[in-house]
C-alpha cells in the first residue's frame, strides 16, 4: 500500500486526465446535488462528498446512445450500415464499492454470457477505475447486507481509503502500479496500512448502529424469489404502490434493460439508438398486434426484484444484482425501494409459518 496526501489528489486526477476522459463525483453548481459526471477540471472531483445521485453506469451504458447509422437509397438500391465509432478511454474516479460492484455485475452480464455486447465492450475496455472506501455509511445505504461494501475487493486499478489527511492507496492492477510509480507515492508503513481494515470495521459498526429502515435481510427474499413462493398479495401491494415511473431502474447500478429504436433522418439516412428501459413500463413486453403478456402492473413490478435477488439472475452476475446503494429507496415515490420489498416478502411469508 502507498500513501497519497489528500492535497495531492489533484496530481492523481490530473495524471489520469492526460490520458483519459475523466469522470467522478462532483457537486452540481446550481442544485448542490452530487452527481457522477464527466469533468473538465480535475480539481472539481471531490471524494468527501456523499454518494452521487446517479450511478456510474451511464459512463459504460449511456442513457441514450446512437449505436449505428444506416443509409439506403431506394432508387439505386445502395445500402450501407455503419456502427458508431469507438469510445474514448475513460477514467472513473471515486467509485463507491457498491457502484464498482454494480459495474462488475454489468461486466458479467454484458460480457460474460453466451454473447458479448460489443457496444458495452467498446465503452468498458481501456478503462481506469479508482475506488473510494466508504469510511462512514450514508443514510440510505445497505451494502453491508448485500456483500458489496463498504470497501472494494476487486475490479479497481487503484483504491483509496481516507485515513484522515491522507489516503491509503491500494493497487489492483499493473496499470495502477504504473501510475503509483509515476506519481512517486511513498509506501505506507505497516501501521498505517492496517488502518484500511480498521476503517472498514468502523464503517460496518456505524451502519449497524445507525441503519433502521434500510437494513435489508435479503436471505429469505432470495429464497422466496428463486422458488416463487411469494403470496400474490405481496405483489398486489407492491403493484399498488408502484407509480411505474422507472426511476428505480434508472438509478440502479446494475439494471441494464434497454430498448432499441430506429429513426429516419431524411434522405435515406436513419440511425439506431439504444436507451435505458424499465420492466415497470406497461409497453415493456407488448408485441406488435397488441398482445401484452405483462399487462397488469403486479405482473411487471415483481420482475425487477426477481432480477435483483433471485438465484437464477445472481448466477449471471456471480452475486446478487442488488448492491445496496440505496438509490431506489431515495427516488421511489411509492416507498417500495428494495429494503421495503424485502421486508414485505419477509413479513408476509413469516405469517405462513405455523406458530404454536
Amino acid at each position: 500500500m502507498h500513501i497519497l496526501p489528500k492535497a495531492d489528489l489533484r496530481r492523481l486526477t490530473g495524471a489520469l486526465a492526460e490520458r483519459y476522459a475523466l469522470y467522478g463525483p462532483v457537486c452540481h453548481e446550481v442544485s448542490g446535488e452530487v452527481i457522477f459526471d464527466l469533468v473538465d477540471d480535475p480539481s472539481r472531483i471531490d471524494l468527501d462528498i456523499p454518494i452521487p445521485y446517479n450511478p456510474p453506469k451511464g459512463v459504460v451504458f449511456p442513457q441514450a446512445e446512437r449505436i449505428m447509422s444506416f443509409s439506403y437509397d431506394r432508387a439505386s438500391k445502395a445500402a450501407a450500415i455503419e456502427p458508431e465509432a469507438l469510445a474514448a478511454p475513460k477514467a472513473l474516479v471515486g467509485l463507491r464499492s457498491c457502484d464498482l460492484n454494480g459495474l462488475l455485475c454489468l461486466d458479467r452480464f454484458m460480457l460474460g454470457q453466451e454473447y458479448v455486447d460489443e457496444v458495452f465492450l467498446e465503452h468498458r475496455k481501456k478503462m481506469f477505475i479508482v475506488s473510494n472506501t466508504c469510511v462512514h455509511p450514508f443514510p440510505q445505504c445497505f451494502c453491508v447486507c448485500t456483500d458489496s461494501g463498504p470497501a472494494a475487493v476487486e475490479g479497481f486499478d487503484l483504491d483509496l481509503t481516507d485515513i484522515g489527511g491522507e489516503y491509503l492507496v491500494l493497487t489492483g492492477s499493473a496499470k495502477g502500479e504504473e501510475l503509483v510509480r509515476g506519481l512517486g507515492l511513498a509506501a505506507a508503513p505497516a501501521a498505517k496500512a492496517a488502518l484500511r481494515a480498521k476503517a472498514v470495521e468502523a464503517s460496518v459498526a456505524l451502519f449497524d448502529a445507525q441503519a433502521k429502515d434500510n437494513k435489508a435481510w435479503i436471505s429469505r427474499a432470495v429464497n422466496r424469489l428463486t422458488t416463487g413462493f411469494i403470496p400474490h398479495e405481496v405483489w398486489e401491494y407492491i403493484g399498488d404502490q408502484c407509480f411505474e415511473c422507472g426511476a428505480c431502474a434508472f438509478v440502479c447500478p446494475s439494471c441494464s434493460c434497454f430498448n432499441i429504436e430506429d429513426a429516419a433522418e431524411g434522405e435515406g439516412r436513419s440511425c439506431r439508438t439504444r436507451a435505458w428501459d424499465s420492466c415497470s413500463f406497461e409497453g415493456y413486453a407488448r408485441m406488435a398486434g397488441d398482445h401484452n403478456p405483462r399487462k397488469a402492473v403486479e405482473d411487471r413490478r415483481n420482475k425487477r426484484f426477481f432480477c435483483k435477488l433471485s438465484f437464477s439472475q445472481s448466477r449471471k452476475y456471480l452475486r446478487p444484482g442488488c448492491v445496496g446503494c440505496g438509490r431506489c429507496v431515495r427516488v421511489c415515490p411509492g416507498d417500495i425501494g428494495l429494503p421495503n420489498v424485502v421486508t414485505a416478502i419477509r413479513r408476509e411469508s413469516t405469517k405462513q409459518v405455523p406458530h404454536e
Partner: protein
Amino acid sequence: MSETGSKAIVTVPAVAVIDEVRDEIEDVKTFYFSFEDPAVGASFRVRSGQFIMCTVFGAGEFAVSLPFSPESDRPHLSVRQVGKVTRALHDLRPGDKIGVRGPFGNGFPFEEIKGKNVIYVAGGIGLIPLRSSIVHVLQHRKDFGRILLIYGSKTAKELMYRYMIDEWKKTEGFETYFTIDNPEPGWDDRVGFVHTLIAPASVPVKDTVAFVCGPPLMFNAVIGELGKAGLKDEAIVSTLERHMKCGIGKCQHCAIGRTLVCTDGPVYTYRQIKTLGEQI
C-alpha cells in the same frame, strides 16, 4: 447455438437483397432473400427453429422466425404486417435491401427425435415457424414413424402455405387434418377449433413428439387435449414469440420468468414452459 457451430452476425446487420416476394394469405408475404456479400451467405448457417433480427431501413428491426429448411430451401421469411416495421417491410419489392442479424436461438430438436412419431399442431400463422421442421422431417421420412399435421385457422383463406401442404401430402404417410372455426361456402372439411381434431386424429402417444404453435388460447386448448391423449409434458415442444430488441440476451425484453426467449429459446418443451411461472 447453430448446429454447425457457425458464427452468428451479432451486432451489425449484414445487407441482404430481397430476390422475390410472394403473396401468401391476406397481410402475409414471403420474402426470399440472399446476402449482398456472398461470403456472408456462405457462412450463414441456420438450424431449423432459429430466428433472425430483420432491419427495414428507416423503420426499425424485428425478430422473426425462419420458415426455411436449412437443407433444401432458399432463405426466406414469411411475415404478417402487424406493426410499423412489418408494414414497412411489406412495402418493399424485389431488389430492395434489408439488414439481417443472426441466426439466434436454440432451434428445434431433430437428431433427438429420430425414430419417433411427429405431430405438428398449428393455428393460423403459427404454421410459419413450424414449416422448417416439417420440411426437414418429411425429407427424412424414413427416420420417423407417423407424421401428422393438424392445422386450423379462423377462415379458409387464412390457412398458410396451402400450395406447399399439397406438395407435402405427396410424401407417403403424411397425415393431414384441417379445420376452420366456422362453416363457410366451398369448405367441405372439418369445422371447429384446432384442439377438437386431436381426439379424431387418434394421435400416437408412445415414442411421440408434438410440435405446437399458435395463439395462446389455441395453444392452451391443444396442450390440454394432448395431455388427455396421454402425451407427457416433455414430449410437447413449442416455439415462443416475445418482444425482442437485441436477440442476444442483453435487452431482457423477452424474459419469461428466469428464461430469455432469445438465447434459451425460442424452442421450449411444455414441461419447461410450465415452470416459467409467467404468462406466455
